[in-house]
Structures are given as C-alpha cells and as structure tokens.
C-alpha cells in the first residue's frame, strides 16, 4: 500500500533526468510541470494530510464563536481576523511537513541534483501544495463566514483577500519549512520563525475586510496584497532553494 502511494526517489529523478537540460523556456516549463504533476499525484493519493489541515481550519474558526459568545455584531467584526488567523495556523501546520517526507526518503537530494534550477522546482512544489491543500481552505471560507453572519460583499472581499494572501503564506512558510527540515520539533519552530514575517499579510488581508465593512473600500489593501504576492513570488523560491541547500549540505 505504501509503495503505491509514495514514489521512490529514483522514480522522481528519472522523469527529471529524461528531459534534456537545456536552459530554454520549453524545457524549464517541462521541468516545472513534471514536479507539479508528481506532487499533485502524491497529494491526491494521500488525502489524509490535506483533510487534516482543512478540519483544523474549520475547527479553529468554529471555536471562536463558542469562546466569545454568539453576539452577531461582535462576530461580524471578528470574522475576518479569526478566519485569517486560522488560515495562517492551518497553513503553518500543513507547510511544516512540506519537505519532511522528501528529506526522509532522499527525494530532496535528487531535487537538489536535478538539472533544473532549484528555485523553479521549489515553485512547482509550492504551487502543487497550494492547489491541493491551501486552495481548499480558501474555497471553504465563505461557508465559514456564514457562521459569523458576514455580509455577502464582505465575504467576497474575504475570499479575494485569502486568494491573494494564502500564496504568500505558502511561499514564506516554505522558507521556514526549508530552514527547519529534519529537526526535532520542526513544526513549532517553523511557525515561530515564519509568523513574524507574515504579520504584514495578516494585517492587510484581514484589514481589507475591515476597510470594506467601514465603507472605505478594500482597493488599497488588495494592492498591497498583490505587491506582497509579487515580492514573494520573485524572492521566496530562491531563498527556499538556498535554505534547502544549507539543510542538505
């Protein structure tokens, strides 16, 4: 059962090695696609981890009304912050194991040795993780917003803010995951390292909904979130690659 669901290191390296290592765009895209498809396949064969993160997200969000009381006005004000913090924590939980399995079975080393630029492969892996795990959190957020009696337009703003912000969470979280790969207690440590860096995303993400609810418009917040996303897309993969090289030596 395990052999079916976890591909060996050689099986991952083979497709990568089969494609000639020319620095042309088509071959780069080929390399990207190979890793992306591989990771998606692995994620779908073992949905347990993805579903656990999803359930954690739902449960944390549901705990808040139980904790602070059911007063609708208060819940409406809190909704964005609560959903955002829960998404943050669920992402951290999910990302902390991003490189752990690969580290253990040697896939990580073959990724480092592959003929493609490591940042590119890292981006592919992160994209697959986001599509298979984090996207589910984003898609379920409108349903959770119902628990907080959030208006339809505010829910829409929350959805877009999560859509823009969660990739940044993945990209920056991967830095923490790469720095702590293979360490004992890596999950907690990784969250400790990454959460301070994600404070701006949280502030502007949740702030977008607050601004919308205050009739100020979420445009400015969305702009900043886009800027953060672009910055993360450009800078994070290289940093993650450097961190992986440090970890594997």
């Amino acid at each position, binding site marked *: 059962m395990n052999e079916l669901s976890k591909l060996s290191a050689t099986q991952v390296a083979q497709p990568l090695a089969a494609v000639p290592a020319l620095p042309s765009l088509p071959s780069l895209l080929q390399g990207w696609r190979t890793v992306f498809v591989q990771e998606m396949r692995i994620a779908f064969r073992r949905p347990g981890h993805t579903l656990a993160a999803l359930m954690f997200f739902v449960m944390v969000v549901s705990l808040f009304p139980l904790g602070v009381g059911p007063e609708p006005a208060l819940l409406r004000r809190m909704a964005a912050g609560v959903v955002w913090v829960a998404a943050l924590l669920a992402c951290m939980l999910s990302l902390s194991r991003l490189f752990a399995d690969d580290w253990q079975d040697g896939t990580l080393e073959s990724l480092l040795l592959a003929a493609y630029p490591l940042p590119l492969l890292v981006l592919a892996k992160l994209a697959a993780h986001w599509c298979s795990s984090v996207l589910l959190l984003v898609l379920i957020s409108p349903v959770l917003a119902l628990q907080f009696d959030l208006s339809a337009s505010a829910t829409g703003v929350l959805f877009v803010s999560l859509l823009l912000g969660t990739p940044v969470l993945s990209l920056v979280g991967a*830095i923490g995951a790469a*720095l*702590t790969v293979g*360490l*004992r*207690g890596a999950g907690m*440590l990784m969250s*400790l*390292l990454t*959460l*301070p*860096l994600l*404070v*701006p995303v949280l*502030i502007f993400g949740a702030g977008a909904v607050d601004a919308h609810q205050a009739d100020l418009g979420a445009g400015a917040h969305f702009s900043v979130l886009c800027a953060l996303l672009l910055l993360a897309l450009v800078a994070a993969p290289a*940093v993650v690659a*450097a*961190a992986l090289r*440090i*970890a594997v*030596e």
Partner: protein
Amino acid sequence: MNSIFYFAAPQRFYPLAGRLIPGLWLAAALLGVFGLYLGLVRAPVDAQQGQAYRIIFVHVPAAWMSMLIYLAMAGWAGVGLVFNSRLASMMACALAPTGAIMTFLALWTGALWGKPTWGTWWVWDARLTSELVLLFLYVGFMALHGAIEDVRRADRAAGLLALVGVVNVPIIYFSVKWWNTLHQGASISPSGVSMATPMLVGMLVMTLAFWAYCIAAALMRVRFIILAREQHTGWVQKTLEAP
C-alpha cells in the same frame, strides 16, 4: 590587504577583542553618567509632557540600538554565508541577545512613556507592531540556531533567516512617515532637528553610551563563543588552563 583578513581568524581576534573591552566599558560608563547628567539634571522640563519626557534619554538609544544591532547581525551573518567565515557567524550569534535586550528595553520604556503621556501602555500601530516583530525575529534567530546541532548548518540557516528579516528594519524606521501612528514622528532627520539643543545633546551622548555598552557586551559574548567552539584547538586549551 592582508590586515583586514588578519583578524578574521578567531585566534587573532580573541586577544584583540580582549584589549578593546575594558576601554569600551569605561567609555560606556563615562558617557552614560554624563548623558544622564545632561538629560536628568541639565535639560529643561518639556512644556507639554512634563518630566515624563525624560524617558526619551533611554528609550531612543535603546530603539536605535535594537535596529542597528539587527543590521549588524544580519550583515555579519551575510559575511559568514558568503565568505564562509566562522568568526563572522560567531559575531552574529554574539549580537543577537544584546539586540533582543535592546528591543525589549525599547518596548518597555516606550510603554512606560506612553502611559502618562498618551494614556496607553500599548497600541497596535505600525511602529510598535514592527518593533515587536523585531523582538520575535531576534528570538527566532536564537531559537533556530539553538535547535540545529551541527554548528555550521546552524550558522548558515540562522544567517539566512536574519537576512530575510532585514526587511523589517526599514519598516520600523519609516513607519511613522508612511502611516498615521500614535508614535510621534521623527525629530531628527536629514532636513533638520526639531528638538531643543540640551535635550538633543543628552540623547546623543546616551546613544553613544548605549553603543559602547552594546559593542562591549557583544565582544565579551563573542570571546566566550570562540572559546566554546574552538575548545578542541591547542591555543584555547592553553588559554583555559592558564590560571
């Protein structure tokens, strides 16, 4: 050309640091006493804030040190990463606790200044939040370094983390310009100074005192780190065994 890298060896840097430390302590003490005299005794009372403003003479130096030390720490970590220098990484490790203490002092003294002056111990504005994030970054650096057993991997990983966090320092510095915050705006800028001279001089002297203190503490710590890490070498064993 040789002289810059001469002291890059821990064995040669150790005695150099040892010679610098007493002078730095003396400077810190003298400047500190003089600065406190200027600040607490000579400087006049503030028209709006009363005597409470005198906290500025420790708050601003601590805050400036917290940012400066982070930049120095990240700088040395970068040197350690690029040039594979052990001593540079050791220096980064030595700076972190001092920087964290300065950040804590900036937050503490800021809270004590904020309560009587603006009515609140804390507010979630851009400057205070990013200063708090700075404290978390320092702690994260130390935690990551401590969690990795292989010292060189620890140096490199923590160094990378420090470099990633550098982006926070300009945010702290420019936050009062970019956002409407409760924290007061910059009194000292390239375009001029909006502070009375006796206060300014006192603050600058205290900053120099804090600076001397921080360098002294960091050099003391790096000497300790050198001894601990190079324990297997002959020169360290001779140094430790000497009565």
